[in-house]
């Protein structure tokens, strides 16, 4: 964000905003920025808390009229994110994931999981009136097709295009990163539809997906497949598939 601030200001438009990494904006002498002590992914604070978000926005905008030199202000409040010492668990019971080598069996296991989550995904979509699924170019109505595609890639059993492919937004293999994003969005939205199922941040989410779902296992296999392809240009794709610390099958905590 720091570089964009400078570039936009060259045209005479003042900039302010929020920053999540204080060291970055402070090190780039941005004109105005409000550092917020919130988790990555939540620059305006907690979801569905309009009062809190409005206060963050108001505090960032206030710098437009209060700052007279490059300023990084610190937002005074932590985001209410639940008890960090407490336990969080997805309220939807899923079978414990298992290593499965056979591609067809793995497709079936992942589809079973997707189908178990589908009623909650539908409920969440109905409540919110929207869904974030679609980064791959394919919507949630084809989530099972996405699951099959990811397993086929992860197991090296891709099928040749038959002219009936959906309108994917990305070519292979980058496509699998966005299919992964869509599957995770589907899982997250299903989980969030459960009353009281509010994760406290990405550690809860990653811990659930990579510790307790078949999807997490399939994503790891897809990352393994990318690595086995031996093309160093694809190394960033692994980073786009699995968050730092979750590549190992022994779930790490810190």
């Amino acid at each position: 964000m720091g570089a964009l601030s400078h570039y936009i200001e060259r045209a005479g438009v003042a900039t302010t905003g929020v920053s999540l990494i204080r060291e970055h904006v402070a090190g780039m002498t941005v004109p105005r920025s409000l550092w917020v002590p919130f988790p990555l992914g939540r620059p305006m604070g907690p979801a569905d808390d309009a009062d809190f978000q409005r206060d963050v926005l108001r505090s960032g905008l206030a710098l437009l009229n209060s700052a007279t030199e490059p300023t990084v202000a610190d937002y005074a409040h932590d985001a209410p994110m639940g008890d960090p010492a407490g336990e969080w668990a997805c309220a939807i019971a899923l079978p414990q994931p298992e290593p499965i080598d056979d591609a067809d069996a793995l497709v079936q296991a992942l589809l079973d999981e997707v189908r178990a989550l589908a009623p909650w995904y539908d409920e969440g979509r109905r409540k919110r009136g929207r869904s974030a699924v679609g980064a791959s170019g394919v919507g949630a109505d084809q989530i099972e097709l996405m699951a099959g595609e990811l397993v086929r890639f992860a197991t090296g059993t891709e099928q040749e295009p038959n002219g009936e492919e959906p309108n994917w937004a990305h070519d292979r293999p980058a496509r699998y990163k966005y299919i992964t994003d869509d599957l995770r969005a589907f899982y997250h939205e299903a989980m969030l539809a459960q009353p009281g199922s509010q994760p406290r941040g990405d550690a809860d989410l990653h811990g659930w997906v990579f510790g307790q779902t078949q999807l997490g296992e399939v994503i790891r296999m897809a990352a393994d497949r990318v690595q086995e392809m031996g093309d160093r240009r694809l190394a960033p794709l692994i980073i786009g598939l699995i968050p730092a610390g979750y590549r190992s099958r022994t779930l790490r905590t810190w």
Partner: protein
Amino acid sequence: MVRLDDLHPNMAANLLALELPQIEPADWITPPPLAEATVALVTTAGLARRDDRRFTPGAVEYRLIPGDTDPADLQMSHFSVNFDRSAFQQDYNVAFPIDRLRELVEAGEVGAVAPHHYSFMGALPDATRLEQTGEEVGRLLKEAGVDAAFLTPV
């Protein structure tokens, strides 16, 4: 609450190791009082409308988000998985606070919402690659009568 100390050590180390470009600041700008200012949102959350071209990894171009866009139509195609996406999935305002901005306008605290907002892909290893498109967005905002941009990362 999350600070660098709360992140996975590898990720925190990567963030701290990022080489920060030193960009000469523009002349100091004194915008009009907020209650008279037109404000745009600029995000690096990799947002695009559902029918727009998705961002690709390393993209430096921007996507236009017209002021009358239904935010429910926004998709996130940010490359990084090292952040909590469930918040955006639950409420787009956590990364694109358009409802909050409209509320401040209705309350008379902000003058007006800009006719267009802009979205970039974040997490570029070299942010100076955004110079051309960043300047272009600044020019477009200026020409649209926008006084200030509120920037959100993700």
